[in-house]
């Protein structure tokens, strides 16, 4: 069975008259970097909340369908158990970092599991090292830059060694270089540790190049799912084409480009140079 297995999940928040998820099915495996996009209100955050059981345990409402994460049935597993399998990182660092030092922040989740202090210490040391946070371990999270804060947030959930990392617009408030650093960090976790990452991000031009898979949602449903290039080509009218893709499509109309769409400026430039070379040299 897949690591994440959603089948026909429908969910309506208590007091709401429409389904925020309306028959969403998704199955994802270790090592994937899934980019989750779609218009505001289409249910992206709700979908991530299903993974660690915030829906339907923390947010109550009508839940239908089947949701299994790491083999556990979400409906009958409490969030604190799912938290060991799903690390969740949110948009606003301020609301997810609580403690007075980076070190304690990383220890917090482990403490919560009731692990003995020596074990917690050992894991904290490892995580500080792995995420290169040793030099700032005594600093208070609120003194750090936005990018560093998000890195600490990721490190603090990764301390629980989850197989799944769910990030809800983790870079929305970050400057582009910090955003790229965060996305590369997530990418490294997927390729080196086999973590499954699900990332919600509106800025495709930043995130696409990291994704191994793209999922597009609309009105609580998954309307496209597959390789980023194919999905983007089909759903550009919903999610918008990045500038390099627009250029490619314009050139293609004139017969000056072919093949799959570029995701980065490098790819576009290479295609143009190739074209130019075959024509004129």
């Amino acid at each position, binding site marked *: 069975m897949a690591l994440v297995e959603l089948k026909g999940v429908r969910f309506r928040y208590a007091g709401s008259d429409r389904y925020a998820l309306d028959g969403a099915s998704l199955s994802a495996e270790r090592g994937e970097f899934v980019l989750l996009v779609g218009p505001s209100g289409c249910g992206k955050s709700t979908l991530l909340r299903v993974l660690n059981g915030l829906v339907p345990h923390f947010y109550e409402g009508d839940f239908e369908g089947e949701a299994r994460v790491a083999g556990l049935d979400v409906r009958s597993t409490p969030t*604190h158990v799912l938290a060991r399998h799903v690390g969740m990182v949110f948009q606003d660092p301020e609301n997810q970092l609580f*403690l007075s030092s980076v070190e304690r922040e990383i220890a917090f989740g482990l403490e919560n599991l009731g692990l003995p202090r020596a074990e917690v210490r050992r894991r904290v040391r490892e995580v500080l090292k792995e995420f290169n946070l040793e030099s700032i371990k005594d600093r208070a999270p609120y003194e750090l830059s936005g990018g560093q804060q998000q890195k600490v947030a990721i490190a603090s959930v990764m301390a629980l060694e989850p197989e799944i990392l769910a990030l809800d617009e983790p870079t929305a408030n970050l400057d582009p270089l910090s955003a790229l650093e965060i996305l590369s960090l997530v990418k490294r976790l997927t390729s080196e540790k086999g973590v499954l990452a699900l990332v919600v991000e509106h800025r495709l031009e930043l995130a696409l190049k990291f994704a191994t898979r793209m999922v597009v949602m609309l009105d609580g449903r998954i309307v496209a799912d597959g390789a980023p290039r194919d999905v983007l080509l089909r759903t550009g009218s919903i999610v918008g084409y990045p500038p390099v893709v627009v250029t490619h499509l314009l050139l293609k109309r004139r017969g000056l480009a072919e093949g799959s769409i570029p995701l980065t400026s490098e790819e576009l430039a290479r295609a143009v140079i190739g074209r130019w070379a075959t024509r004129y040299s």
Partner: protein
Amino acid sequence: MSARVLDIFRFRRKRTPLHALDPRAKFVMLVALSAASLALSDAVSLSALLAVEAALLAVAKSLREWARSLAGLSTLLLLIFALNFLTLPADRLFVAAAMTLRFLCLTTAFSIFFLTTTADELAAALEVSGVPREYSMMFTMSLRFVPSLARDLQTVADALKSRGFELEKGGLKERVRNYTYLLVPLIVYELRRSIMVAEALEARGFGAAKKVEPYVDLSLRARDYVAIAVSAIALCAVIWVVASGVYGSFVNQVRAYFPQL
């Protein structure tokens, strides 16, 4: 008065003997200092107490933060002084000065504690003393979000003002009404924030284990025992001096020394 006044209670990370003290030892110290501030009632001994507190702040390398926040508190201090001075029948200057000093000593006692103790050390101390983790966490959270709340308040007020709204306009009644415009977005936002925070807590496995061993290893060391002993002795001494009447005659002597006040 601005949020800046609260800085007098905001932790600053420093390497000093006072910062390194166990939070429980600092708590006993806080109790002793506050009790002394409340028990003493003449300007001379309260000044002496303030001097002791200033010395402690110097050890904690925090005199500057304290002094800076005092500037913000000065209006309040003046107000206390003026109110006492204007309403008292006799001994006006003497008592008004003592009351102002008492407030200052008390504030400083708390300031010493909070400037040198992090919220989570405090929470750990509470947990070790048997307070359930939910409550100690609640405590940490409420301290943690004071600056955020202050910042939100500022932003909402800024937004309101830049919509041409004048908060300080009109009579008292109107001003109170003006402030309700400020409160609505603030309350809505803080509610939203509390949900976001709760979500993040859940996602970190909060509440998973019944029994939790705090990360901070709180065990009293020699210097903590010394601090506790000194504070306890000082506390007993103050209580004895006041209860035995020695203090009363001292105050009378001081009074006699300044008959013109």
